[in-house]
């Protein structure tokens, strides 16, 4: 349990550092690191398939796509960068307040509710996510329409990239 808490705290910490990064490249690497830590957490939750998907897609593929896109973008000039960074940290003043409020909210949940909630599906998790046939059954027979939905979302993303970025070349 203590390793899980440590992992969660580290994931949140790396996520915050990633968001606060000035450099897009460092942000993309931070995202990969956060995904890698999440993968470890998923393995600890006995969800190897979810962990593999998280590692290969979020930490792997998405990081590659981000870094490729960043390499195509032009960096800001020194003057533009200085203007953008002026007073930057004032925007994050509410963040510690929000974090404290969230922690207080979690601590307000009665102990018996929290433990009984966490115990609810823990036995089920080990049996339903361990075997490939259960995941295939869930994906193809129970949530089959979602596969179509996810294909359509990816197509939508492709059209978005083509529409929003293709014209930049023509403008130049």
């Amino acid at each position, binding site marked *: 349990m203590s390793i899980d808490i440590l992992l969660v705290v580290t994931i949140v910490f790396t996520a915050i550092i990633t968001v606060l990064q000035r450099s897009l490249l460092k942000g993309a690497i931070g995202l990969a690191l956060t995904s890698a830590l999440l993968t470890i957490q998923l393995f600890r939750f006995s969800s190897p398939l979810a962990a593999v998907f998280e590692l290969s897609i979020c930490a792997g593929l998405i990081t590659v796509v981000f870094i490729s896109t960043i390499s195509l973008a032009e960096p800001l000039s020194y003057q533009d960068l200085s203007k953008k960074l002026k007073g930057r940290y004032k925007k994050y003043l509410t963040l510690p307040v929000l974090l404290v409020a969230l922690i207080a909210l979690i601590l307000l949940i009665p102990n018996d509710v929290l433990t*009984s909630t966490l115990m609810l599906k823990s036995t089920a998790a080990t049996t339903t996510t361990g075997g490939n046939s259960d995941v295939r059954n869930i994906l*193809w*027979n129970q*949530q089959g329409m979602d596969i*179509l939905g996810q294909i359509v979302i990816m197509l939508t993303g492709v*059209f978005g990239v083509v529409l929003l970025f293709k014209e930049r070349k023509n403008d130049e």
Partner: protein
Amino acid sequence: MALLLLFIPFLILIVINLPWRVSVSARIALGLVLAYCALQMVVVPILPVSFWQTPLNLPLSIGMDSLQIDWLSRLMLFCIPLVAICSLLTGVQYSKDLKNKFYFKNLILLAVIGMNGVVLARNLFSIYVFIEITSVASFILIASHREKGALEGSFKYLILSAIATMLMLTSIAFFLLTSDNTQFSTITTAIQTAQATGTNSGLLMEAALLLFIIGLLIKGGLFPFHWWLPDAYSSAPSEVSVLLAGIVTKVCGVYTLLRVMRDVPVLHPSINQGVLWVGLISIIVGALLAMRQKEFKRMLAYSSLSQVGYIIIGLASGTPIGYVGAALHLFNHTIFKTQLFINAATVEKSTGTGILDEMGGLSKRMPITGVTSLISFLSAAGIPPLAGFWSKLLIIVALFSTGYNVAAIIALLAGILTLGYFLIMQKKAFFGLLNEKWKDVKESGAAGLVCTIALSAITILVGLFLPYFLYTYFI
């Protein structure tokens, strides 16, 4: 057979993206998308529910059990392609860039697939997936012209939508902790069992449902999550505003709220009361803010906030009359808001401005736009015998019948505010002396006129023949 409403547009998407010549592909895209939308509009209300429930004998079993059609789905499946056609024809009229037009049609079709999926699904996770399709298509459409205001509007919508997504996924995770899947029937049974046995999981599931409802309030642009709405509506290209205001927020937020609160009828009474107050505050805040607006589209955006509040209070009354009133007002709002945004687009393109104070007397040069705008606003204000009167009447009657007298009186009085801001809009834009600057403006083109006249005709016919429509489609 309901699956055809997802497969056929998907196949059309593949066909229009085959390597045709650029000039040909735009026409093929327009023709096929318009034909499909017209077909869906005509076929879905005509064919019986049993036809749509017949399973398709596909080699792969792909979770068809979660697709269902009822009277509410059929109503939305009529509205979705209707607004898509209006948006397409507005785009054809006003957008000149061929390549942009082509991608616009693709994105409209993708949004239609997403919205069809939302109204057909009876599973929270599937609903979430299809809401995301519609949302992603909307972000891209809003930002498609890459103007600064549009990018800002799209970004605000994206961020709020991401928060809604997080809430919805958290609630789905809680449901999966306590039940086997996220089907409405499974969730209802699980909550009822937990409430009967008095276990903590009942409290958790109600909290999860509340989180999902908050996510839907964000998607629907309801108070207090409405602040992305005016920026997105006013800064988006005109044809996108028509789609967004006419149907996207209605399906992703309001319809889904109607569906969830009806099909999972195990809400704690305090959540129902909370939804009622959210609706009332939306009505008042939307109306008061609309009166202060100087820009045509921003006024319409705040008006949407106010009118959707009526739908929510009808739903929160918890009675069949209230539910039917809410569904009818959802339909009416789709029709009159689409029409008003088409007219706003016409006025903006003809005059080059969206500021109401700079317009004046436009009905002398644009009589059809002026008259159809008048019909829409009278329907929105609930003036008989137009369609909007009946839906508001049903909602008010439902509130009085359940003892929510204060809410009913507030909703009635807010109708005066609705009349107020629409009169301001109509007076500044269309009535009065013609501003000399606009003596050469022309009426909308044929495509826009067809849409606006058809929508006015629907408003008048539904108002006059409502008992027939009620008994055929609602009862």
